C-alpha cells in the first residue's frame, strides 16, 4: 500500500528505535517475531540487554555470518542466531520458569488488538478453518514483568488495533503495559489508553480518530526526538 497515511508518523525502524530507548540497561528481554525483533538493532550505545529466546537460550546474539549458522542454534522464530559470551542453554521447562516466574523484565510482542483494559489478542482470528497455533505468547504475557506491544496503529484496512474490547480471541487478560505504534506511544492505565508521546507531525486528534476506545492525554505529553535518556525521563519533552 502506498497511501498518504503511510508518510505520517514513525516507520517500523523508528518505532523500534523509540521502544529501544525505554529499555533500561541490564534488562532481560524477550522479543517476539516480526517488528519486535527490530528493537535489538536500536539499543542505545552503552546499554547491554540480555535477550532470552524461549526455545532455550539466554544471551542470544545477532544472526550468524552467511554460511556460519548452526541449525541447532535458532530463535523462537526458528531463524538461526548466535550466542554471546556469557550465554547459557537450558531446557524448555527451565526457559518457561524464567518467563512464568517473573524473571524476564520485558517482552515485546506484535498485536492484532489491544483493549483499553490491557487485554491482548495476537494469536488467532478465531475464523473457522484457521489452524490454531499459540506458541509461547500466552505464557509470556502472563509471566513477564512488563509487556509492550509494537504495532501499526491500524490494520491494513484501516481498522483500529487499539480497541474498546478485543473481538478476537484473547492471548491474555489485562496484560499489556504500553503500546508503541507508528503514531504514538500509548500507556495502558487504570483509566484506559493514555498517549504519552506523539510521533513527529502527528496530532492528538489524528490519533484519537484512529483509536477504537477513549484516549487520554498525558501532561506533559511529549513528542519528537528527545530521547537520549531512558524510560521515565521527561527531559526536553515538549507538552502538546
Amino acid at each position: 500500500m502506498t497511501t498518504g497515511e503511510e508518510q505520517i508518523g514513525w516507520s517500523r525502524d523508528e518505532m523500534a528505535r523509540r521502544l529501544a530507548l525505554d529499555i533500561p540497561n541490564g534488562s532481560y528481554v524477550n522479543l517476539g517475531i516480526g517488528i519486535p525483533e527490530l528493537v535489538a538493532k536500536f539499543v542505545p550505545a552503552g546499554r547491554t540487554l540480555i535477550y532470552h529466546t524461549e526455545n532455550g537460550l539466554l544471551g542470544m546474539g545477532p544472526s550468524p555470518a552467511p554460511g556460519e549458522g548452526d541449525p541447532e542454534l535458532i530463535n523462537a522464530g526458528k531463524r538461526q542466531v548466535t550466542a554471546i559470551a556469557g550465554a547459557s542453554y537450558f531446557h524448555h521447562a527451565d526457559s518457561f520458569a524464567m518467563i512464568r516466574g517473573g524473571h524476564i523484565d520485558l517482552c515485546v510482542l506484535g498485536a492484532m488488538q489491544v483493549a483499553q483494559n490491557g487485554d491482548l489478542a495476537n494469536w488467532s482470528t478465531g475464523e473457522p478453518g484457521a489452524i490454531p497455533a499459540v506458541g509461547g505468547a500466552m505464557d509470556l504475557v502472563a509471566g513477564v514483568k512488563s509487556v509492550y506491544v509494537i504495532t501499526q496503529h491500524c490494520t491494513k484496512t484501516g481498522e483500529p488495533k487499539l480497541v474498546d474490547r478485543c473481538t478476537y480471541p484473547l492471548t491474555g487478560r489485562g496484560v499489556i503495559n504500553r503500546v508503541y505504534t507508528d503514531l504514538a506511544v500509548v500507556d495502558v492505565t487504570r483509566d484506559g489508553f493514555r498517549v504519552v508521546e506523539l510521533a513527529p507531525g502527528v496530532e492528538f486528534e489524528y490519533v484519537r480518530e484512529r483509536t477504537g476506545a477513549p484516549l487520554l492525554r498525558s501532561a506533559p505529553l511529549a513528542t519528537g526526538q528527545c530521547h537520549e535518556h531512558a524510560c521515565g525521563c521527561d527531559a526536553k519533552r515538549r507538552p502538546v
Partner: protein
Amino acid sequence: MIDKRYQSAADAVADVPDGASVMIGGFGEAGSPIELIHALIDQGARDLTVISNNTGSGEVGLAALLKAGRVSKVVCSFPRTANSTVFPDLYRSGRIELELVPQGTLAERIRAGGAGIPAFFTPAAVGTPLAEGKESREFDGKEYLMERGLRADFALIKGRRADPYGNVVYSKTARNFGPIMAMAARVAVVQVNEIVEAGMLDPEVVVTPGIFVSRVVGVASPMHESELVAAGATYP
C-alpha cells in the same frame, strides 16, 4: 554391566504399539530426531498420539509421520510452520485431532508428568479460549488454571552425546524438550551423534541423567529437516 545401547533406530522403536503416546523432541528442526521418526514410520505403528511442540515441515520427519496417517492426535503448541502443509490438510479435513497447549504449559505439564506431579496451577491462558473447560482458582488475588501432568509411553529425542548408562548432553537450542520428555516417558529413546564410554561425560555437565533414558542409538551424521525440505525430499 548396564548398557542401553541399541544397534539401530529400527531396533530402538521396534516395540512401539498401535495406540501409543509418543513424545517427540525438537523445536522446529532443532532437536528433531528425524532418524528415529523415520524408523517409526518404517515400523508401522498407527493411531499414535504425538506430543510435540510443532508438527514438522515439508514431508520428512514429523510431517512425514503425519502424512503417513499414523497419528490420530497431536498435543502441540504451534502446529503451523513455513513449509507446513501436511498438518493443515489433515486438520481441515478432520482426520486428526488437535489439543492446543500454550508452549510453557506444555513444557511444564511434561516436566510435571516426569516429576510425579499430577497437577499444578499456571497463570497462562487465563481468560482465553484455551481456558475453556479448565478449573480455575485464585491464589493471592490472582487467577490461575489447573493443568495436568503429562506422561507418554515413548519419547523420541535427539541428543549430542551419550554413554551406555544413558547419560545425555545436547547441542545448543536443540536441547529444548529433550530433557523433560526423557523424564516423562516410560521408554525414552535418544539418538546421539556420538556414544562415548561411561566416565567420558563429566558428571557436572550431564543434562539428562541416565535414569531417565532407556535406549541410546548412535546416528553419527543426523539429517537436518531444513536441508531435506529445501531439497524437496520426502519419506519414505
